[in-house]
């Protein structure tokens, strides 16, 4: 069985996009969250190996959610998906200890390549 992946994004379409790529790449998508708050909850109940994390989301944004998840488990691997104009937040995320970033838009093969190397 492949690694467990948690997809966090407020856009259903992007979730589908990542899901398709992940399944094709041999990952098990254990859960999908549409905001940061759900992400934290689902992390605790599903304990994924890797997480793809969107930044701008309602209720709780990706940075805050990542902080909370990293506090639960500093070892978890988070891939942060940034968009044009998110540079500031990316810098903040680096300070929190997030090491992997990917700029939107991306192709399915690209995201798998990064996930494989994490």
């Amino acid at each position: 069985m492949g690694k467990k992946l948690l997809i966090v994004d407020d856009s259903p379409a992007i979730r589908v996009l990542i899901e398709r790529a992940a399944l094709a790449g041999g990952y098990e998508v254990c859960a999908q969250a549409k905001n940061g708050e759900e992400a934290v909850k689902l992390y605790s109940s599903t304990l994924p190996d890797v997480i793809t994390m969107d930044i701008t989301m309602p209720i709780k944004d990706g940075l805050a959610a990542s902080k909370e998840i990293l506090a639960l488990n500093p070892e978890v691997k988070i891939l942060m998906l940034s968009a044009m104009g998110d540079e500031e937040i990316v810098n903040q995320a680096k300070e929190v200890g997030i090491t992997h970033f990917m700029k939107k838009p991306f192709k399915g093969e690209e995201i798998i390549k990064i996930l494989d190397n994490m």
Partner: protein
Amino acid sequence: MENRGFYLDDIDLVKMFIDEWTECLEGLEKEILKLEVHTDDSELVNDIFRRVHNIKGGSSFVGLSGITRLSHEIEFTLDAIRKKKAFVNSELIDSLLQSLDYLNGFIGYIHDKVKEHDFTEDGRIFVEFGSEQEETAVLEGLRQALEQCKESAKEDEKPVEKGEQVESELEFKSNLTEGIKEQFFPENLEHIERIENHLLIHLDNHGNDREVIHDFFRTVHSIKGGIGIYLATIPSQNPEHLALKEISEVVHHFESLLTLVRDKEITFDKELINLSYEVMDYLKISLSMLESEEGHTLSATEILEKVDKYVIYLQSVTDHLTDSSKQPARPESEKMPNLPPKSNIMQSIRVSQEKLDKMMNMISELHIAKNAFMHISSRLNLEYDLPEMSKEVKEVGSYINRISDELQNAIMSIRMVEIKSVFQKMPRVVRDIAQSSGKKMELYMEGETTEIDKTIIEQVSDPLVHLIRNAADHGIEAPEERLRKGKPETGRIVLRAYNKNKHVYIEVEDDGKGIDVEKLKKKAVEKGFFNETQIEKMSQNQLINLIFLPGFSTANKVTEVSGRGVGMDIVKSNIEKINGNITIESAVDKGTKMMIQLPLTLAVSRGLAVESSGETYIFPLEYIVETVKIHRDNIHSVNGKCFTYLRGEVIGVEWLSKIFLTGERDTEKEELNAVLIVNGAEKFGVIVDKLKNEQEFVVKTLEGHLASIPGISGSTLLGNGKVVLIVNPADIIQLA
């Protein structure tokens, strides 16, 4: 992209994105409109931002770079708003909406393509971009609007220095001025009033309340901002421009003073408060001069000098303060930005009183017109023998009745305002008197949220100021005198408003020296109002009411404050003009209580329709005590005046026909119908032929030669379209 078009290949994905975007766009327009009013609502900006961000992210995936570019630009703009780098103005909102329309159109276009299965042979969609010019125009429009907003944000920070450079380019904006002006004056006056009546009064007692000092600073800053924006819309040749610049300078300097006070933890002392009041007075006067377009304002030099002097003084005083005392100040002043935002301020629009009045009038007429249904209904039944039809008309009638009732309630509630707006002035009034007379007193206000019709509020404001002045100036004694009498040194004035029995009551109560009836007696005789025997016969209540006589003033010396020639008689007549009533209770050395009774609204009254000599009249309900049947034998006549005994009380009676000279006393009937009316303490019975029904009516004043008929206060329309006269009971008692 040379051919301005490209292919979308993943149709499912595109469909999903389109659904998402449509959802995002749905609320967006409304939210942007909301943003125009709530520029400080960061949650709102965040939500708009998130929606646009979502579109941006999605569009980049499917390769719709046009949408990505535009949504990025919108995001950029929103970010500037969020970080307070740009001020939201209507132009910016316009451009945002324009961009939104463009997005909407484009997404709609793709949506249609997908729906119509307008695919190419290999199952893809060929998307043509809208014209490049259009896209660029939208983008440019947004960029420019943002640039201008950034300018005005900068300008707001330094209105004085920056003013000159931007002037020339802003001249073409002068057509904007009117709209801004309409908001500018009332808004700033509101700020000033709040400072005067709220913040300064509070600081007077708690000079070190940092929260309030911050609030003060912010409010002054808002005034400055407002002036800056208004200034930007006035051409520089305009004399107003110069005047406004001067005002702006005063506010700017005053703000610097407050910055010192805030940052150096200085306590507000009496001197500082007096200076603040002076600045507020200056602002109020010069702004109202500007508004009335007199074209000139007060000279600012004097007030500027005072403020500057104080700034220098504060700097010198605080320079040798030790650093340790400054240290604790930091965290608190840094707290300032995240103090409660303005989001809890209720959303409202300003409507001119005239429009409201017109609407009120029309609804009132509808109210009357609807009565016709009942009339027609009964005629259909009785005269035309169509009971079915009659029932139908009646149903429609009651339906319209209900709607017009609701309409009336709605407009009534619009016209209702909190009495706070009047009460707010009072602390300043009391403070000024306390300052100039050296007395100590405190004003307590209760029931500020009591609601009352706007027109009534306007009418009651001056009388109320007068009563408060009286209480402070004549009621409350000097501190030594109070101590001698065993009262607390600080006098107490209570201003209270409450609802009771469909009326609003306002009370002014003080614990001062009260009204000395003996003094009143002496004075009444001295001034020749009454002779001594008349005076001795008067009841306590009648004696106290002497002060309402024109030209009767009890103050030993007329002071600057209360001796303005507006006597209690004016107060009384002003209150009576709005169908109100004023009564006094007073005890020597205990205090005085003035009670004003006011109707909730002036618009619609209830009255009793009566018939006399074949003519219908209406008696306003407020004046009616009861209706009674009097037996012929119980009417006695002395010297041509008639009276009757009613439950042991002697009450004067007269026939309405006799009063209006429409007929003679009708003594044929055994039982006579009488309307018992009251004016003050006096009761009087008016005999009429027939008591009809109680109904609502709207007073229409009579004009021209009809205006001054004694005994008649106006006219109204009945449901059947008949005009009837409204009786003025106070006059009737005089006439009889």
